[in-house]
């Protein structure tokens, strides 16, 4: 057979493929509308598995791998198209639009705010930067901070998510999967740790130093320079300061913030003992309702991916294709599930950008579960 003849045959088949593909996409759009009406997720893993198994059965052995790739791609394209259709005008888009319209133009200066810890904790410093005048209610743990906003005791909550030297606050990320909340703002605060002890206690008297685990990590160089001194982790830095102030012992000190000096009547033995000078902690301000203030240029989402090869890669390539920058990608293992992860994405895009909503639509389509956590700006 002549080469030209073979090519002609291919051309014919391709024409049919294009025609069938277009038909397939038309029907796919109808399915998208059906899913929209019935609030069904775009991805249907069971249907996809059955589909692949069915077509592979009909495929000659030699082409099985290729057929698999082809149908994976076909379904991927179909989901992407459905996501675009449903994503535009989808629930997230509507909620975002509504929130942008109904949220006050100014971030509130007064509010009841939930924080973890006690007076003098680092959350307080973050809180004071976010609000001019906050009525802070302190809670024993982060879980209660989330509950307090969910149950309406406090309008906002302030929790740390990240520290430049000690990394992510895992506990807070794990709690995100168990609560309903939105991020309305974030703030970076410079963290300074000081070695505090009761008046009269000298540097050489100190045998034990109490502080939060992260603070101990952040001051590791200073601590290892001390001979015969033990670092003891506790709930948080302010509680460490309070404990040192109230203890009858004269051989203990705390790593804590500057406000604790006055608050607990302590003496500062050494200032700024953290490893690096630009040690900061990033806090998020959370709320029960979605509020989007002017200038929101960060969007956070939380998602789980299908347990299959390349799913994260495919998701990232969508961001690349839409020109959306990823500020942060965090993953945490899901409890009671082997090698399955919750992913946290911080996307860098103005909330008003149309491609952000397209991106969210497509991400939703590609994920097993997808939660929009809010759009906000960060105070530096």
């Amino acid at each position: 057979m002549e080469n030209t003849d073979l090519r002609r045959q291919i051309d014919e088949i391709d024409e049919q493929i294009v025609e069938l593909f277009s038909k397939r996409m038309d029907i796919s759009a109808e399915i998208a509308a059906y899913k929209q009406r019935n609030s069904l997720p775009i991805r249907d893993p069971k249907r996809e598995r059955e589909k692949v198994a069915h077509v592979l059965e009909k495929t000659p052995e030699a082409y099985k791998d290729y057929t698999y790739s082809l149908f994976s791609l076909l379904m991927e394209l179909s989901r992407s198209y459905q996501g675009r259709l449903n994503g535009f005008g989808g629930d997230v888009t509507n909620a975002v639009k509504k929130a942008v319209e109904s949220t006050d133009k100014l971030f509130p200066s007064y509010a009841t705010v939930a924080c973890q810890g006690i007076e003098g904790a680092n959350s307080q410093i973050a809180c004071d930067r976010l609000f001019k005048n906050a009525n802070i209610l302190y809670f024993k743990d982060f879980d209660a901070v989330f509950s307090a906003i969910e149950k309406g005791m406090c309008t906002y909550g302030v929790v740390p998510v990240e520290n430049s030297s000690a990394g992510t606050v895992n506990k807070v990320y794990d709690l995100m999967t168990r609560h309903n909340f939105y991020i309305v703002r974030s703030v970076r605060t410079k963290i300074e740790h000081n070695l505090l002890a009761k008046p009269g206690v000298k540097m050489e008297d100190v045998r034990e130093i109490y502080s939060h685990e992260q603070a101990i990590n952040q001051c590791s160089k200073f601590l290892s320079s001390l001979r015969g001194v033990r670092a003891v982790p506790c709930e948080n830095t302010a509680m460490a300061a309070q404990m040192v102030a109230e203890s009858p012992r004269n051989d203990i000190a705390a790593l804590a913030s500057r406000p604790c000096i006055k608050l607990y009547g302590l003496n500062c033995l050494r200032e700024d003992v953290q490893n690096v000078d630009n040690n900061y902690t990033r806090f998020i301000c959370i709320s029960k309702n979605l509020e989007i203030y002017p200038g929101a240029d960060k969007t956070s989402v939380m998602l789980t991916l299908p347990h299959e090869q390349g799913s994260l890669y495919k998701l990232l390539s969508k961001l690349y294709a839409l020109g959306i920058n990823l500020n942060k990608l965090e993953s945490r293992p899901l409890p009671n599930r082997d090698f399955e992860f919750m992913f946290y994405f911080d996307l860098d895009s103005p909330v008003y950008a149309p491609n952000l909503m397209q991106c969210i639509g497509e991400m939703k389509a590609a994920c097993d579960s997808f939660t929009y956590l809010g759009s906000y700006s960060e105070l530096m």
Partner: protein
Amino acid sequence: MIVELKPNTAKQRQDRLVEWLEELGLGVHVFEGESKTVLGLIGDTSKVDMELISSLEIVERVKKVNETFKCCNRRFHPDDTVIDVRGVKIGGGNFCVMAGPCSVESEEQIMTIARAVKKAGTHMLRGGAFKPRTSPYDFQGLKAEGIRLLIEARKETGLPIVTEIMSIADLPLFEDVDVLQVGARNMQNFDLLKVLGQTDKPILLKRGLANTLKELLMSAEYIMASGNERVILCERGIRTYSDYMRNTLDLSAVPMLHELSHLPVVVDPSHATGIARMVPPMTLAAVAAGCDGLEIEVHNDPKNALSDSAQQLTPEEFEKLSKRILVVRDAVT
């Protein structure tokens, strides 16, 4: 449910917690004592997240309260309630004697008795204007005129006046009365209690003659839940199979009510015994049991009294008894 706050809790933090609890549809009874602040929660507390409240830094502890009475419960209000009636205090270590005739009969009668009990050192003047009599043919009281005469007696002696209200309809007549008494037979007249709960008058609530302490406290709760926290409880004898006396004075009610409630507890030995010569020993026993006050019937001419003639003391007998009250009170406090 009771939420105990840590000492020195910032006001605005406490306020927000109270406001939130109220948003949940609960009544919040705030007790601010010298050493601690206690929030008593009234209503359906089953939907309250105890764990969340416990994890608040300002909260010392959260406790469940099983008793159905809340406002009058001592756990809601650890300190004794002190009720001030025109400068006369009762409760929390302040002892108060209320004395006077069963019924106000005439101007001369009430004036004579008022002067006599004042001389004996009594703190308030009692006297019936509306009388709940067993028989409809018995003297029913001077009604509005009786109240007018009590007010006259107060003008002269300065003694605050205590008199019984029987019906909601009569309430306007009591505008110038200092303490409104709810009689034993009206203890569970819940509509009356609710209306009295909306007044700002101290209420002397007498235990019904077949009512339990819990029922007495629930009646106090009716008044308090309607907004009036100034309730004085009164033990006046209950019906038992003990004969020879009108009723049996349940003196064990005094320490038990003190344990269960923060309200002042008064004892009425006159109606409990129904016999004048039994009144002094039972009065002294009541003082020894730790009551916060007494209500005693005194008449210038008991034999010819229009009501309860067998149980009223003469002014002389009352004066003697008053001195002995002070001695016993000294001995037990």
